[in-house]
């Protein structure tokens, strides 16, 4: 069965520093991987996805993610964090049937000024 794991409940970074939010996956077949962000009292917003091709995927708001097949990871990154990036981040994988997303438990990112 497809699954993703986010090993960190919270990540704290200072504004201007690079950030990484970690995600590892376990899938049968080729992984379809996603990152979503959730701001307080809001629904989830799509950031980026990896289907195939370049291992470095660029997304919204300056975020990017690196797909690493040997480490079964799909970490979210940003070179320079903003206070406004503070939110809850979810990694997700498309289920085997291709019909729905399975989410990780989320990582809270806190960026301090």
């Amino acid at each position, binding site marked *: 069965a497809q699954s993703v794991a986010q090993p960190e409940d919270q990540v704290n970074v200072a504004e201007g520093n690079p950030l990484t939010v970690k995600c590892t996956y376990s899938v049968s077949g080729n992984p379809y991987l996603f990152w979503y962000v959730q701001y307080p*009292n809001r*629904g*989830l917003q*799509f950031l980026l996805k990896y289907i195939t091709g370049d291992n470095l995927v660029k997304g919204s708001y300056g975020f990017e993610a690196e797909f690493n097949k040997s480490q079964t990871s799909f970490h979210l990154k940003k070179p320079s964090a903003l206070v406004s990036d503070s939110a809850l981040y*979810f990694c997700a994988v498309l289920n085997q049937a291709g019909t729905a997303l399975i989410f990780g438990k*989320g990582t809270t990112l806190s960026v301090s000024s």
Partner: protein
Amino acid sequence: DAMVIQNPRYQVTQFGKPVTLSCSQTLNHNVMYWYQQKSSQAPKLLFHYYDKDFNNEADTPDNFQSRRPNTSFCFLDIRSPGLGDAAMYLCATRVLISEKLFFGSGTQLSVL
């Protein structure tokens, strides 16, 4: 402009009293989803529709039902809410040729 709209934003119900949550979309997407998100947990898929075809997850309690009268609207009915059903309920849509989901802002359900 909001493309997936969920009403109400907050819903309070009593233990055992039926409640209905609604979702509408202006995207004309053929797939609609309901997810349940409890505090500090991953959103959990309850069911989804592909057009009018209903797909229930194996572990979704019988207490939860859904209706999709047309492409634009989808409803989540909780027949006898328990305290454990208090959660954020998220509606999402998708066009089948894309894997990207569009989410509404959610309905926060409280059960007293």
